[in-house]
């Protein structure tokens, strides 16, 4: 079910005031794969995501997405290439409706340019209608359809996590980077989120996720990377990594 390499990371390093946040990190994510990134706090997982999405510049190393170098590319440029991310601290526009947050996520909207607004208005309307029905069917697929008009701030924390995942789907991104998708939410919601994520490869998506919930990682990831102190310690299928003495040691510490 997995295919050729979608994301290639080569020798990424990042220092913060002399502290190594990421040390010579290399890895490959293949198409239609779900890769889990685990490790203690401060292991450099979110730093890696921030570099991959252009919010941080690495001190050295290279990142290639479908062969295109991402280093030096601004965040919006990387997002436009088809790399979407969620945030650990959940960024959504609370004052906008659930539906508006989703509609915001679509790429290449004619209605977001002046040329489209003033010279191709029918096309804008048409696209907006299509996006709206797509967004509503996404909401329906997770049982949030009745919430479409509500301010996003009124959703529960779990529902917001679900919505931010949907935003990534709406963007049409091929690679979804999920930062702690199931942390801090009710068990019922965890099950729902995991089933959505598990189904993504069949919809042509590739996932890399950070998660502290080991059960969740074991349940859905095809491959797991264990990081500690900015270094990739162990990599392989979930069972192998879980039984790696270095991983056990780190978690028992």
């Amino acid at each position, binding site marked *: 079910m997995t295919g050729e390499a979608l994301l290639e990371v080569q020798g990424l390093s990042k220092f913060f005031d002399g502290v190594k946040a990421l040390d010579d990190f290399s890895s490959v994510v293949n198409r239609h794969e779900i890769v889990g990134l685990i490790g203690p706090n401060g292991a450099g997982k979110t730093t890696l995501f921030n570099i991959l*999405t252009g*919010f941080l510049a690495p001190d050295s190393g290279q990142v290639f997405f479908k062969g295109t170098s991402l280093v030096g590319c*601004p*965040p*919006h*440029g990387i*997002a*436009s290439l088809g790399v*979407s*991310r969620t*945030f650990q601290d959940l*960024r*959504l*526009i*609370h*004052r*906008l409706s659930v539906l*508006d947050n989703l*509609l*915001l*996520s679509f*790429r290449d*909207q*004619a*209605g*977001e*340019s*002046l040329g489209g*607004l*003033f010279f191709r*208005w029918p096309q*804008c309307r048409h696209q*907006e209608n299509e996006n709206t029905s797509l967004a509503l069917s996404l909401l329906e697929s997770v049982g949030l359809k009745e919430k479409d008009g509500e301010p996003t701030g009124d959703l529960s924390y779990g529902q917001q996590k679900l919505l931010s995942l949907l*935003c990534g789907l709406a*963007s049409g991104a091929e690679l979804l980077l999920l930062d702690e998708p199931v942390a801090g939410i009710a068990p019922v919601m965890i099950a729902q989120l995991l089933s959505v994520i598990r189904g993504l490869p069949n919809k042509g998506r590739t996932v890399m996720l950070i998660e502290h919930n080991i059960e969740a990682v074991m349940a859905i990831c095809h491959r797991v990377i264990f990081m500690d102190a900015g270094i990739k310690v162990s990599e392989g299928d979930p069972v192998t990594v879980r039984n790696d003495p270095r991983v056990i040691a780190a978690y028992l510490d």
Partner: protein
Amino acid sequence: MAAKQGKSPFELLGLMEYLLHILILIGIYVILSVSLNLLAGYTGLLSIAHAAFYGVGAYVAALLALRLHSPFLINIFCAVILSGLLGLLVGLPSLRIRDDYFVIATFAFQVITFSVLNNWVSFTGGPMGLPGIPPVSFGGLVLSPKWVFFLLVLLFAVLVLLISWRLVASPFGRVLKAIREDEVFAASLGKDVSYYKVLVFVVGAGIAGIAGVLYAHYISFIDPTSFTVMESIFIISIVIIGGAGNLWGSVIGAVVMVALPELLRFVGLPNVVAANLRQILYGALLVAFMMARPQGLLGEYSFGKGGGR
């Protein structure tokens, strides 16, 4: 405030003329506040330079009309292009910096603009201003009656409202609001935040230029005191009191802020007292709104309150 106060307006003008005068001023301030609302209310860019762009529009029109006797439509075209270009010039560096610093950068530009208008005597007339700006005419047909000019202002105000409505009630407006609320999130969704900020700043500046042209041709005399930082703050007050992030709020705000002080005349206060009282009224109104209703009359967004996320 813009109106050049003489004696009591009743002594100078008939009641109808007086009312038209108020309506024309309201129209000009609708254009100014709606365009500032695009920046401040929708995108979260609190600019204190709006009066500067207003002034540039007025001076461009006045100088073109006086020196080259160019027609109104040419003047308005040049004024929009020039104030828009100036907006680009100010916006590019200012929008690289954040929030509070952006406010200060626009303030600096406001001060510089006033200083240039006030000191470049050979070109702008300096403090003496530019008198004798001709009224609007189309191919020799002079729009001298006040009500005709009012219709012209109304036309432009409606046009500006329509353009602004298209901008905000669309995917474009959704991006602006997203930038106002959370730039990082907007960028993570592939929106080029800097591009949108500069673009909106340029559009807002260009529209403010339109108001300047109308003002110059209407009043027929302009001097730098009409385009000070106080004027910028007056426009900001309209946006805040009317309601940031709501176009109708700016319309209502302009009506309230321009018409309300005029009511002071009817309670029989001496003119000198009324003029001073007006400033106090504006100040008191602004403080009262900030405390009791920070989102303004119709607004959905209030500065500083729950900003970001």
